[in-house]
């Protein structure tokens, strides 16, 4: 007899709905991407989505799990999308497929699939690629706006990269500011993509699909560290807005760091988790050797998440020192 336990009411959200919302929220950022850098990214997206679904299906089949509920939860699609957006548009197809393979198999299914993976699968795929194929991974095209077909699509350094190399050559930020890859606040074109992600992220916040703690932590951590160094020496350290609108900061804050499975779960823990990512991102960007830092920062904080959870449990009702009546 099927007598169920309370609560009895149908439950509204589903994992698939959550993932779908996140996917939808990527649209403004992707639109800006296409607008400024051409439709190459769409190819990446399609390729990554198809590969991730295929690897997920294969892994599920091998593990003897039902396909339908797990393919339908859209999490594989989201992993693919995030990885695609982190790769240079126009990357060779095998690069995308390899990344997806590592994301789904090494990042997710070797640990037991959805809900059991300690590391963000998309970032696992990304880092594996970055370490194995540094050349392909750093070949980014310059802006190639849709409305201006004349611009050549020569590959160029990303704004973050450019600023770091030039600083290394002894130029000051004021001098670098006028260089080709830079726009009014951050990288030319990139700043708009970032603002697109920001818009999508705010929509997710408004829908309460994600909570404010992680994005606030990431952006706050990045902003405050950048502010401190920039205030100390504005010639050698890039401005806070530059950091917020460059690279994958916005994408990371709203879409990558907020991956529920691998983040901290307590409200205070999430703020700390976000702050950690923000500060680490700044440190790796400024003193590290990689073009962007979000992926490393996220993976490092993934390791810390269980510990953060342990020390940030909410206070349990009735467990503080007894009060006077």
């Amino acid at each position, binding site marked *: 007899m099927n007598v*169920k336990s*309370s609560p009895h*009411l149908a439950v509204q959200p*589903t994992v698939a709905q959550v993932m779908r919302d996140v996917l939808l929220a990527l649209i403004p950022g992707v639109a800006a991407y296409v607008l400024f850098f051409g439709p190459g990214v769409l190819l990446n997206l399609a390729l990554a989505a198809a590969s991730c679904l295929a690897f997920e299906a294969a892994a599920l089949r091998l593990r003897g799990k039902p396909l339908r509920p797990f393919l339908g939860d859209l999490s594989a699609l989201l992993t693919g999308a995030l990885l695609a957006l982190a790769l240079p548009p126009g990357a060779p197809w095998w690069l995308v497929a390899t990344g997806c393979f590592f994301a789904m198999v090494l990042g997710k299914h070797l640990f037991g699939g959805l809900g059991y993976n300690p590391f963000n699968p998309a970032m696992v795929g990304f880092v594996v690629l970055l370490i194995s194929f540094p050349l392909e991974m750093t070949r980014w095209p310059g802006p190639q706006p849709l409305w201006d077909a004349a611009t050549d699509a020569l590959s160029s350094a990303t704004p973050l990269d450019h600023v770091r190399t030039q600083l290394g050559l002894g130029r000051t930020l004021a001098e670098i500011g006028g260089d080709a890859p830079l726009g009014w606040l951050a990288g030319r074109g990139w700043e708009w993509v970032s603002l697109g992600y920001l818009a999508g992220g705010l929509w997710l916040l408004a829908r309460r699909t994600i909570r404010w703690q992680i994005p606030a932590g990431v952006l706050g951590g990045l902003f405050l560290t950048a502010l401190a160094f920039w205030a100390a020496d504005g010639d050698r350290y890039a401005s806070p807005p530059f950091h917020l609108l460059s690279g994958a900061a916005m994408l990371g804050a709203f879409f990558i760091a907020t991956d529920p499975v691998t983040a901290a*779960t*307590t409200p205070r823990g999430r703020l700390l988790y976000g702050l950690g990512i923000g500060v680490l991102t700044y440190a790796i960007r400024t003193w590290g050797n990689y073009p962007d830092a979000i992926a490393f920062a996220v993976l490092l904080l993934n390791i810390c998440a269980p510990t953060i959870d342990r020390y940030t449990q909410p206070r349990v*009702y009735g467990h503080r020192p007894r009060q006077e*009546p």
Partner: protein
Amino acid sequence: MNTPPRIYGFRGGLHLPGHKEESTRTPIRPAPVPPVLVLPLQQHIGAPAKPVVKVGDRVLRGQTVAAAEGYVSAYIHASSSGTVAAIEDRPIAHPSGLSGPCLAIRTDGLDEALAQPEWEPCADCTKLDPAELRARVRRAGIVGLGGAAFPSFIKLNPGRPVDTLVINGAECEPYITCDQLLMAERADEIVAGARAILHAVGAQRCLFGVEDNKPDAIGALRAAAQADPRIEIAVVPTRYPQGGEKQLIQALTGREVPSVGLPLDIGIVCHNPGTARAVWRAIRYAEPLTARVVTVTGGGIRAPQNFEARIGTPIAFLIEQAGGTVGETAAPIMGGPMMGFSLRSTDVPMVKATNCVLVLPRAEVRDPAPAMPCIRCGACVEVCPIGLLPQQLYWFARGREFEKAEAHHLFDCIECGCCAQVCPSHIPLVQYYRYAKTEIWAEEREKRKADEARERFEARQARLEREERAKEEARRKKKEALAARTAAPKSVPAPLVGEGQGEGAAAPPTPNPLPQGEGEAR
């Protein structure tokens, strides 16, 4: 009365669709007396009541049919007149679908009351000694009508100073409206009951906590309580589980009931409005608890409404009175959608604790599709009113790591269901917590049994040893005395002194000349 009481709020919780309108369009209607009333002998927390009538006896409304057995127990009265048809095990409303001892009355339709109530009515409860007041509440078989069914007279006997009486009129669960209508229609009786309780527990302040979605109840209570400055009507924002005792106390007073403690530990006593009214009627009219207000509602009920129904009325009869069911319905739920339990059959009687019978269309209940894995989204953490980590508890319960679950405060969980209601993976979290709690209890019982057995064994062993030693001692003394007498018949006191020393120092029986040896023995 002029400044509204401060509201402190509580942690977490949910805003749920209320579904209160369906059953509040019409006033409370007295339900007819069913052909057969079935009175379970245990409708309360504590020992089952003991029948005091025999099969075939004619009983009248208000007559005691089963008496309280021990301190924590409750009297049970015939809720209408008729003949005792059976005293036997029958199916009762219980999550596990158990049977239990019941007393069935075939009603005669006359609904004849006792000519002389079993105790004296009293016009002014404040003239009554609190002990006498409690005794009458006990005789009236009143238990907490909010759902817990704890014998009320015990809560009227705090044995400790109480500063605040909280009347829990929050009724935060969706669909249930029995308290709301009662507060709107019988505010004066509830307030009078609250005064009687204030008198019994010696408190000086009474706070009514009512959610702001019940303006009619708030208005009626305010009017009824106007004359008494001790009574305040606190309007709290609608939020589930506001009506949880711990949550309401926190929301109204800012105090927290200590873990594994009682509200009494912080000087608070909490009662349900229906209980307050029953207390009043028991004192004023010498009326035992034989009926209560019950909401019959849900999208699967043709005419949702509230009944004042006799305790023991079969659920099926109540559903019929509400026009029966419509469409394809899920199993009826006793209680609300968040904390109630589904019934295997409608052939069970309503009891003193039954506040609601909820029949939902099949499409509106949680679908039984298998749960997805926990994605650690933390939605459950946000809503837990206790501040637990539901996903961790789930993890531990699933992995049978019960010690860790306990260390994560499993036993502070109030099973409100907030976590399960927001879980995108549709994990029946509360079910896991209940399972873990039951397992832990069973383990403890086992352990206690084993401990007791061991203790019994050890006690027996120790006794045998003691007896053996005593026998030995007696034999030795006898032998020594004999030896002493034969060796030194003239110096009789010497061995006695030696013996006295030996015993005083609990030294080994043979006198030991070596001082080190003595030290060792110690």
